[in-house]
């Protein structure tokens, strides 16, 4: 947040730049001011609101997207720094109407309650499974440690990631 008036005035005056992003496979050109974050750009300018804005200070992971395949907190990423890069969001996880194995597992194993952490959680977990198709508990913990969930206690989330990677736990009845 801007603390002083001259800072705010400068930010208001700064010219916009045109940035090209490949969002879920589609190239988009958007004009952004230098201080616009990636989460703002995705939600407000590209118009994909699946990515959530929660703390907007890099502490909760709700805004996680994949930038050239790597999970980043989009609230701490400036849109101008992403020019020419590929962005994947929760909207890009399905194949048409078909849910990914991970999305299916999230529903099957109780990984979703209020759903506000879910898009970010799914993106972190997708990145994890892409680089390590059979992660152990330790690896899962490391990959998801930046994503807070207040509803589930994480039990369902861990079960879902294990199941989606074929390391099924006994399904709860």
């Amino acid at each position, binding site marked *: 947040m801007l603390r002083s008036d001259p800072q705010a005035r400068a930010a208001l005056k700064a010219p916009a730049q045109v940035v090209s992003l490949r969002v879920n496979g589609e190239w988009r050109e958007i004009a952004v001011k230098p201080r616009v974050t990636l989460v703002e750009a995705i939600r407000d300018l590209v118009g994909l609101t699946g990515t959530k804005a929660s703390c907007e200070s890099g502490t909760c992971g709700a805004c996680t997207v994949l930038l050239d395949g790597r999970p980043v907190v989009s609230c701490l990423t400036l849109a101008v720094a992403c020019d020419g890069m590929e962005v994947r969001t929760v909207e890009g996880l399905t194949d048409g109407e078909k849910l990914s194995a991970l999305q299916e597992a999230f529903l099957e194993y109780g990984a979703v309650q209020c759903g506000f952490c879910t898009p970010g959680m799914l993106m972190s977990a997708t990145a994890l499974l892409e680089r390590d198709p059979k992660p152990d508990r330790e690896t899962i913990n490391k990959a998801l440690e930046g994503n807070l969930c207040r*509803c589930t206690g994480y039990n369902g989330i861990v079960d879902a990631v294990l199941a989606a990677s074929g390391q099924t736990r006994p399904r709860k009845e």
Partner: protein
Amino acid sequence: MQSELKYVGKSVRRKDGPDKVTGRAVYTQDVRLPNTLVGRILRSPHPHARIVRIDTSRARALPGVKAVITVEDTKGIKHGFVETPRYPPDQEVLARGKVVHVGEEVAALAAVDALTAQRALDLIEVEYEVLPAVFDPEEAMRPGAPEIHPSHPKAPSGLANVGGTTATEWGDVERGFAESDYVREDRFDCQLRTHGYLEPHVTLAQWENGKLNVWTSSMGTFVKRAKLAKVLDLPQSSVRIHKTYVGGTFGGKIDLYSHEYCACHLSMLTGRPVQITASREEIFNAYRHSQPLTLEIKTGVKKDGTIVAQRIRAINNAGAFRGSGVVVIFLAWGFTMIPYRIPNLKYEGFSVYTNNTVRAPQRGHGAPKVRFAIESQMDMIAEALGIDPVEIRLRNARGPGEKLPNGDDTHRGNLSECIRVAAERSGLLAKFGRDRSQPPKGTIRRGIGIGVSAYMGGTLIYPNGSGVIVKMNDDGTAIVLTGAIDIGQGSETVIAQIVAEELGVTPDDVKIISSDTDTTPQDIGAWISGMTYVTGNAARQAAGNAREKLLQVAAEKLGVRADELVAADKVVSHRLNPELRMTYREVVASSIAKRRGDTIIGEGFWRTMRDEPAHPSLATTRGRWTENYAFSAQVAEVEVDIETGEARLVKAYTVHDCGFPINPALVKGQIDGQVSMALGHAFMEEVLVKDGYTLNPNWLEYRMPTIHEMAESEDADVITEQYRVGQPYRTKEVGEGLISGVLAAMGNAVYDATGVRLRSTPFSAERILEGLRDLEFQKRKKHKEVRA
């Protein structure tokens, strides 16, 4: 009808699931309207100060600023969490004359973008005259303390800042203590914990054609509508709260918040939509958290552990307005008297104003603190008497068919059964005391402990009951109109299951339209632990009503009596002659043709305790409460590192009676979430406040459980079978009562691991280390005394 259940009692997948894993689910922050202005709130920088002067002219003059309001622009209508003759509404939507806590709302404005709004806030000039402030409730009560508000007229005279009291007693406590074999008195405290909902507070308001459209992150759209309409001085029909998905609440989104009012007022002034989002820092600094409760408990028991008498004094640090403080001191009595039999009790509770942020309900609404205190003391008593923690609890626990002191009935509720199963499943007695009697090598100590709790569901508070409408579609499927709001607990799924079961369709055939105040019937909301019971039973009735109408129409068409027909799998057929049948599609078509266009609509309504007038008295506790009590016993296994003092929950066992579980997977989700929240309360979380200022207003410094802290959580639902036949809709509370027992169990387990008894939460590493050092010191002292 219910001999074989098809969908009720099954872990049907969440209805909102596909929307939530694809990003399609629309939360309040996702609603976009053209031309929307950004609203911002100016907040008090002081905990207590007189407002000498507010000058908004420079802010108004800034290009891009569309409207600025202070309390002078409002109608001055007050609101409160409680609005009764004894406790009339006490708070205005913006500060008038003085501010009473840091972050209190002083002015609000709307501008074309966030930067302009931010700049404009800096241009509002407020002159304050700082007043002496008080933050500790016991200091605030003392005569001569800085007065935040006058004490309640019925408060004991001479005490300052007492916003409300609860007092009740039965039997004769003094005689009870005299007749006891063992008496002890302890004092317990707890920290300020925040709800930690991931979705921030956010409201979008649009005034158009004399109608206010509102999207807001809440726990009950009908309660919000009632409160908003009142402070805006509009008829309820002029306010429409739209449905949005809600990203977590845990109690923190039921009160009316100033930003909700301001977004509406600013939209009415500008004719443009206004959105106000609270930043996480604002939420930590200025919004409502939990209620820190101090409990002094004196308990007298017989040699065998039977409770004879209990005297409790509860002091609630209620913050700068009444909030739900006076409810918490009432509930603290309730959470005391439900689980155990107490033949003689004297209870007094004080809700005290301090210059802290206002308090809100929080999952459990006082129960975690009360049960932590009582269950800790139970273990201390057991140890002093030389009996085990299971035995002392079984001696006092309530069973089925007991009358509670307020006249309510436990029905089938059976705490003893919960305790027995929890002890057995966890191997409690075999593990208890192990590491204390034979400390293992290394620095890790294991401990185990038990705690119990009970919670009521569906009590009477506005709007008291829920209605549901089931509309049949031409194709034989159904649309359900319900005011129930899904805050993540899964209400839409549960209602779909119930309607499917009763109507003879599948849950996929049921489409839910929910929580929109214009298009759905009134609903109690997701905040008094009764939605599955109250709205669920309304849904059952509505579906049953639609089914009867289907049967009636089919009977006319087939030329038989309606009671000879059955409805199942979208077909109405004759009991004896299944050839005689009509599909729902045909029945609906027939109804539309024959009844000149009438389609089939079922209606249902439900209220707890239909014959009771209202909620019991907050001041005297008199009056019945509910017909719905859930009991639970929980066991925790913890690990403590005696070198660092760090403790963690390893495994929790929850044994509960939630009535009949409509959806066991959703029940399990509630349990796991509560265990997680409880372990945060036990070991990690505390809003640190100094002189009214929050010191750790972010999730880096306020630590909530991450995936690393995930604990194994096992649960067992007891008594279920008794409900299956004939009473599958006898559901009970499961969404907030289960933080309490496990929190208490963790305290007892820390003691079991280390010998350190903590009377305050959180059980931080520092406190545990200090306790260990103290034990060491006591040991050495004893050693010295022996040698001397």
